[in-house]
């Protein structure tokens, strides 16, 4: 509950914040900015959390934008400077031990204000590097690797167990470790925020807001996403699937109305004296497509393939049949693994690699061999109603692309779409044979979850 900032300069801050959010692709109109100003006027500046909520309510349109907003907000409306540590920490083992001790204390108590203060002190004391202006800065990584808050787990657990309080029923004891881990992770996030704020002070807020704040989960590049981001992305699978399902259902509803059914129209016209007042349309029988997914699950593109598999799994009732094949340089069917994987999406990739036979004598992806094997062994999966999605970057590691195999696949299936997680400007560079494949089947860039959702919604036949 620290004071946010003085009203003077608030307008500049607000417009700066809005500009930074727009840079992240948020559609914020002038009307909303004006509303945000009125909202700030209404809630005042005494309570920083209220300022945050007021801006979020007026500027945001979906929860997905919230993490980015929070990080940008922390830059433009930082905790007041009054919170800066009074005593400067010497970068000594003794100081470090003292700080760790106080951190354990605060984690035990779960005291948010104290943790904020400690994060500020930690970055100030142990996060600075460099000494010449221009090359110096603040690093959350350095702070955290010196402070190692995760090693405090045992200490905090011990204190919580012996703490006087309402006697702890033994059952909840088993939750303790996870709870402490979550508290520690929250503290690490505080440190990151603080480091960003200090860097922003040095380098100018606008620059940091643009560069150091990651975008919303669905705009993260599949090839660049780290583990945490993929986890976050995984949580968007279900909402995305729901959204796609309604879109597909609506399209199907519209497409089900066919041409005029003459017999039934005449029949109905009897009640109006032979005048066909209401024509009857023939309804097409609903026919759902069969989907075949062929995924490269080798290192670099595995995140993309997994996300797509989960999405297809969540959408399974939109298809009459879904079959999923994975390959590195050998192909194996993993449909069963995906169905079981619904409960544990995080372990999906490992399980596929462990249980399916995907590699021959080497671990590099080889599209030519894999496509050839697929066309030979699983030809029965393809038919006039099947739509094939191939997922991969088309990097063959120098091996023969085997265009004939892809041609055979395209010849048997109704449609083949290739989704490539690389940007088109890279296609054909190095060992990529994307252009050759793109001549045979439709190849589209698909770099983030937003694009994937749009593509699947558009490409699937009704």
């Amino acid at each position, binding site marked *: 509950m620290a004071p946010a900032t003085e009203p003077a300069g608030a307008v500049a801050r607000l417009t700066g914040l809005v500009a930074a959010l727009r840079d992240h692709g948020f559609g914020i109109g002038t009307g909303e900015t004006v509303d945000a100003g009125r909202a700030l006027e209404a*809630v005042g500046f005494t309570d920083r959390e209220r300022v945050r*909520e*007021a801006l979020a309510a007026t500027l945001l349109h979906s*929860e997905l934008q919230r993490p980015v907003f929070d990080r940008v907000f922390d830059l433009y409306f930082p905790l007041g400077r009054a919170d800066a540590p009074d005593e400067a920490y010497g970068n000594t083992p003794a100081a470090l031990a003292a700080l760790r001790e106080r951190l354990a204390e605060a984690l035990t108590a779960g005291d948010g204000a104290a943790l904020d203060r400690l994060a500020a002190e930690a970055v100030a004391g142990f996060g600075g590097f460099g000494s010449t202006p221009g090359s110096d800065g603040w690093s959350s990584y350095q702070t955290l690797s010196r402070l190692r808050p995760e090693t405090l787990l045992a200490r905090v657990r011990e204190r919580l167990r012996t703490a006087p309080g309402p006697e702890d029923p*033994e*059952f909840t004891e088993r939750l303790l470790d996870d709870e402490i881990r979550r508290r520690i992770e929250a503290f690490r996030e505080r440190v990151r925020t603080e480091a960003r704020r200090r860097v922003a002070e040095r380098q100018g807020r606008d620059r940091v807001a643009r560069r150091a704040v990651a975008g919303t989960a669905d705009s993260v590049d599949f090839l660049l996403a780290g583990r945490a981001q993929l986890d976050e992305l995984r949580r968007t699978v279900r909402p995305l699937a729901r959204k796609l399902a309604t879109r597909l259902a609506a399209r199907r509803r519209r497409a089900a109305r066919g041409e005029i059914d003459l017999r039934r129209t005449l029949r109905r016209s009897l009640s109006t004296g032979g005048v066909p007042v209401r024509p009857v349309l023939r309804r097409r029988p609903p026919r759902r497509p069969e989907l075949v997914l062929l995924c490269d699950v080798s290192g670099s593109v595995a995140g993309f393939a997994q996300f797509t598999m989960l999405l297809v799994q969540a959408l399974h009732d939109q298809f009459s049949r879904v079959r999923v094949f994975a390959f590195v340089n050998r192909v194996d069917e993993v449909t069963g693994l995906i169905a079981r994987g*619904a409960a*544990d999406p995080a372990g999906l990739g490992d399980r596929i690699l462990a249980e399916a036979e995907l590699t021959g004598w080497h671990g590099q992806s080889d599209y030519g061999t894999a496509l050839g094997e697929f066309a030979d062994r699983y030809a029965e999966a393809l038919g006039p109603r099947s739509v094939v999605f191939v997922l991969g970057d088309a990097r063959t590691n120098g091996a023969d692309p085997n265009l004939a195999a892809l041609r055979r696949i395209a010849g048997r299936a109704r449609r083949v779409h290739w989704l490539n997680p690389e940007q088109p400007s890279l296609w054909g560079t190095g060992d990529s044979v994307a252009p050759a494949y793109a001549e045979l089947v439709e190849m589209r860039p698909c770099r983030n979850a937003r694009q994937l959702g749009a593509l699947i919604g558009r490409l699937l036949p009704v």
Partner: protein
Amino acid sequence: MTTGFFSSVDDVAERLAATGYLASPAVATTVFLADRLGKPLLVEGPAGVGKTELAKAVTEVTGADLVRLQCYEGVDESRALYEWNHAKQLLRITAGRGESWDETRTDIFGEEFLLPRPLLTAIRSERPTVLLIDETDKADVEVEGLLLEVLGDFQITVPELGTITAVRRPFTVLTSNASRELSEALRRRCLFLHIGFPEEELERRIVTLKVPGLDTALATSVVRVVGALRAMDLRKVPSVSETIDWARTLLALGADRLDEQVVRETLGVLLKHQEDIVKAAAKLDLEAV
């Protein structure tokens, strides 16, 4: 133009609390803003966190009338806005034999033959009103077009009568489970509030308030277990209403503390999928369910 229900954020929080709705700072701030700026409030969030309850609580503290439009697939203009009472119009035409057509025509499209539906009712009301548009995402896209005029300017155009503008702006709450993406245009007209799961402390207060008679230590344990379940990757994590259900169940069973057996037997109150139950049991170290 404000609806003028509240004087400050603290005022919102205190008065809502008095009716049994404990608002997080985010909720209190946004409700205050919706009131002060006179804008509709779009509330999103998982099922069972109190989106509809919020509208009801505001109604209660302000002594306003609650007008509710429940959306569903196929809800249309005549269900949301107004309808002409055709039967009555026909009666009027048959009754008034001998007068000229012009007279009849001006007469049958008057107030008397108008059946107001929720949106029109809320706009025309002279009393303070809370308009709740529930589960907006269930309605078809066309209905959103309808809402744009109503929520943008708080007015409704009836071709035969002209434009009807709100005398008193209703305090408007739209709820959505995000099962369909609402249009950008609609979102722009609204303040946005996402109600997620409450903080541990707040949830404990909610449980204690809703389930009087529950032991404090047990309430703490209940909230901790629910918190642990939410951190797991489940198909459907328990929400606040399920926490309360669980607390009530425990109270009814006379359990005064959590142990393995009680949790195992009552996990079905919290989790609604068998695979979730199996998974949670494994993570919580329960013996086979």
